[in-house]
C-alpha cells in the first residue's frame, strides 16, 4: 500500500466512515479513489469521508471528491466530508466552492449525527 495516503474504512450501521490520512495529489488520487470505493462496501447508504488527517490536497484531490460524489449520487447514496476549520485543506475546498456541492462538516460527530437529508437540487 502506498504510504503517501492511507485509507481506513469502518461500517457504523447504514453509515460508512472512511478516514484518509496523508497527502493527495495527482500521483495517488486515482488510487485513493478506488481504495475509498473498496472500503465503502455495498450496504452503506451514506459515506462520511474524514479528511482531518490530510496534510496536503490540491485540485487533483478536489476532482477526486467531485467524481466520488457524482458516482454516489448515481447510486442514490450520500457523501459527506469532515474537514476541521483551519485545516490547510479547508482553504482549497472553500475556494473551489466544493462545500456548495458536497455537505461539509467541521467535526466528525456532527457529520455522523446528521440524518439522511435530501439531495441538493443544483449541481454545478
Amino acid at each position, binding site marked *: 500500500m*502506498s504510504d*503517501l495516503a492511507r485509507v481506513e474504512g469502518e461500517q457504523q450501521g447504514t453509515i460508512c466512515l472512511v478516514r484518509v490520512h496523508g497527502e493527495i495529489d*495527482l500521483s495517488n488520487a486515482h488510487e485513493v479513489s478506488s481504495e475509498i470505493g473498496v472500503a465503502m462496501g455495498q450496504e452503506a447508504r451514506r459515506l462520511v469521508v474524514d479528511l482531518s488527517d490530510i496534510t496536503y490536497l490540491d*485540485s*487533483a484531490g*478536489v476532482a477526486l471528491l467531485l467524481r466520488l460524489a457524482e458516482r454516489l449520487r448515481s447510486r442514490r447514496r450520500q457523501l459527506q466530508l469532515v474537514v476541521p476549520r483551519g485545516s*490547510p485543506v479547508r*482553504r482549497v475546498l472553500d475556494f473551489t466552492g466544493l462545500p456548495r456541492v458536497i455537505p461539509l462538516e467541521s467535526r466528525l460527530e456532527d457529520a455522523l449525527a446528521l440524518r439522511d437529508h435530501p439531495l441538493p437540487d443544483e449541481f454545478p
Partner: protein
Amino acid sequence: MATREETPKAPPDALVNAATAHPWSYAAGVLLVAVAYYTAAKLGLRLALVGRNITPFWPPTGIAVVAFLVLGRSVWPGVALAALVVNLPITTGVLPAAATAAGNTLAPLVAATLLAKVGFRREIDRLRDATAIVFVGALLSMSISASVGTGVLVASGALPADELPGSWAVWWAGDAMGVLVVTPFVLSLVQPWRRPGRPRWKHLEAAVLFALIAAVSVVAIGADPHLMFLVIPLLGWAAWRFQQRGAAPAALLVVVVASWAAAKGIGPFRAGTMLEKMLILQAFNATVAFCSFFFAALVSERMQAHQALERAAAGLEARVRQRTSQLTEAQQVAHIGSWEWLIPQHRVSWSDELYRIHGHVPQEFPVTFETAVDQVNTEDAARIRSNTEAALRRADDHDLPRIEYRITRPDGAERVLLGKAKVYVGPNREPLRMVGTVQDVTEARKAEREHRIAETLQRGLLPDRLPEVPGIGLAARYVPAGAEMAVGGDWYDVVELPSGRIGLAIGDVAGHGPRAASTMGQLRMALRAYALEEPSPAEVVRRLDRLVSRLLMSEIVTLVYLVLDLDSGMVQFANAGHPPPLVVRAGDQISFLEDGLGPPLGCDDPGLPAEARFRLVPGSTLLLFTDGLVERRGTSIDEGLQRLATVAMDCGQDIEAFCDQLLCSMVEDDTADDVALLVIRPLPLTGRPLLRVPAEPRVLAPLRQTLRRWLRESDADPHVANDILLACGEVCTNVIEHAYGAKEGPLEISLDVRDGTAEVTIRDQGSWRPSSGVHGGHGLPLIQELMESVELAGGPDGTVVRMRRRVSSRSDS
C-alpha cells in the same frame, strides 16, 4: 667437449719444493731415479762405440727426462749422483767425471724445462707433442751433454782433439736417441690405462706384433741387412693399433737391436768406418723413432677428433631429444597442437597433441590434407578449404587468416579450435610447405561467454541511471573485479517511494558469475516491491530475510537499506550484516553508522533487525559501499575502514569527482572483489537553487518535501508556506498533465528569497494553457488566490510561470 688437462708447468722453485714438503717420498724418488739411471747406463755402455764411454744409444738420458717430467725436476740429485757414479770408472779423474755428470744432469733438466714451456703432454697424442720431444727434448737439449762430455774428454786428454766432431756427433746422437726411444716408452708405461676392459684379443695382437717385430729386427738386421725395411710396416701396425703405447716399445726394441748390431759389428755394420756405421745407425734409429712417433701421434689425434665428433653428435642428439620432449610437453600443457604439410609430397604430419585435441591416440593414423579437413564440422570445413586455396594461389610466404572452427570428436564431443597457419613458397614461387598450430579454445570461449552473460546481466540489473531527486545529489559506481574479470553480486538501488521519500539500498551477494548476478537481480526487485509497500526499513529487511530463507539462496547476502525524508533529512535504516555506511559531516567529521546492525540475510536468525535513524543535515555526505572498497589483500577490514575515513575526509564539492577519488585511492587495478558505491548529498537550498525533475506524477511528493525544506530554511510562516506549496503543486500538476502529452520532458523549478519575498519560477519545454488545465478550471484562479503575483508567459520554447509571495515580516536584505 672435455679436454685433457695440460701437464702443469713446474713453478720456478720446483727444484726444492718437493724436498721440503715430503722428505721421505722425495728421498725414495731420488733413490729410484738414481738406481734406474745407473742401470740404464750400465746397459747403454755395453753398446759403446768410442772407447768405453761414447755409445750410439744412451738410455739414461731418456730415464732422466722421464724422471723430471713425472716426478719433478727436484729429483735432479738422483740423476747427478748416478751419472757421477757411472762416469767415475770410465773417465780419467773425479773432476772430469763430475763435469761429465753435470752435463748429463743439465741436459735432461733443460729438456724437461723446455718441454714444460711448450706445453708438452705426456700422452704424446698430438703431433705437436711428437715434434716437441724430437726437436726440443732430444736434438736441442742433448747438445748440452754432448758438448760438456766430449769437451771434458778432450780437456782431460782422453780424446784427441781431431776426433772431437765425430765423438760429439756420437754422444749427441746417443743421448738424443736415449730421449727419443726411452722417454716415450717409459712414459707409455707410467700412463694409466685410459680404456679399462681392453679386449683380450688386443693383448694377443700386441704379443704377436712384438714377437714379429723382435723376430724381423733380429733376422733383418742380424742376417740380411736388405730386409731392414721390413720393420717399418710393423712399426706402422704398432702405432696404428696401439698408438704411443705400441709405437714406443716397438721403436725401443728395434733401436736396441740395431744399436746392439752396430756395437757388435754385425749385419749392415760389418764393414765401414766408425763414422759410416754411426751415420747408418743414427739414420736408421732416427727413421724408426720419427716414424713411430709421428704416426702414433697422428693416429691419436685423428682418434681424438673422431671421439670429439662422436661426443658432439651424441650431445646434439640428446639436446634434440630433450627439446622435442619439451615441445611435446608444452603443447600438451597449452593444448596447442602443430602440423606441417609438405605440399608437393602430399604429406601431412601432426604433433601428438594435435591427435589428442582431435580425440585420437597420437600418430594413430596417417594424415593427409583431406582427412584433416574431413574432421572439421561441415560449415567450417568449406571456410578452411577456401582459405587454403586462396593461400596456395598467392605466390609468396604469408600468414593465413586465423580461423576459429569446430570439430566433433569420435566420442561426439564438440570442440572449438583456433587455427593459425603460414605458407612458404619455393624459389619459383610454388607453394612448398604449410605449417600451423591448433589451439583448443573450447574452455576459454565458454568462460568468455559466461563472463559476457554475467556482465550483461549485472549491467542490466543495476539501475542504468539514477533518478533525479529534487534537492539531493546522487552518484554511484560499479567496478567489476579486475583480477579474474568475474562479475560479482554487488548492487545498489535508489527507489522513489510513493511517500515522496527516497529508498537507498546497497548490497552484496557473495560469489561471482551469472549465479551471483542473477541472485542479486532477484533481490533488487524484491527490495523494490517491499519498499513500495512498506515504509519501515527494518520491516523491508525482515521480509527480504524471509524471502532469502524460503528461496534457499546458498550465498551470503548482506545489505543496508535506508529511507531518506527529503524535508526533514531524517534517515531510517536497517543493516543486514553489511559494512556500515559512512557520513561525512560539515567540518570533516567522519562517522560510520554502526547502529541498526543485524545478521546477514538468510541466516535463520530470529532476531529482527533493529531500526536506527539519524539526520542527514544539509552539507553532509552519505556514502554507501560494498566491502570491495575497503578490502585489500594483506590488510584487515578495519585498516580498510580507517583508510576510507581518511580518504573520505576530503570529499570536495562534486560528488561525481568524489566517487572517482574514492575508487582511485581505495581500489587496486586487479581488485579481487567487485565494488559498488552510492553517494548521497542533500544539496544546499540557499542562494537560487534550481530543481530539475522529469515531468511525471511521482515527482510531486518529493518535490513538496524539498520545497517544505526550502520554505523552512527560508523562515517562511507556516500558513504562507502551505499556500506556496499548494500553488507550486497546482502549476506542476498542470505541467505534468498537459505540457508534453504522452512524451517525456523536464520540469524546472528555481527558488529565490529576496527582501522577505519568495519567488518561484516553474519552466517547461512544452505547451499548455492554464485555462485548459485543472478540473473545473480552478487552477489559475486558485494560484492567483494563493500567491501575491503570478506571471505567465507561453512561447514556442515552453511556458514559464513566475509567482511571488511575501514569506516573512522581516527583511532579509
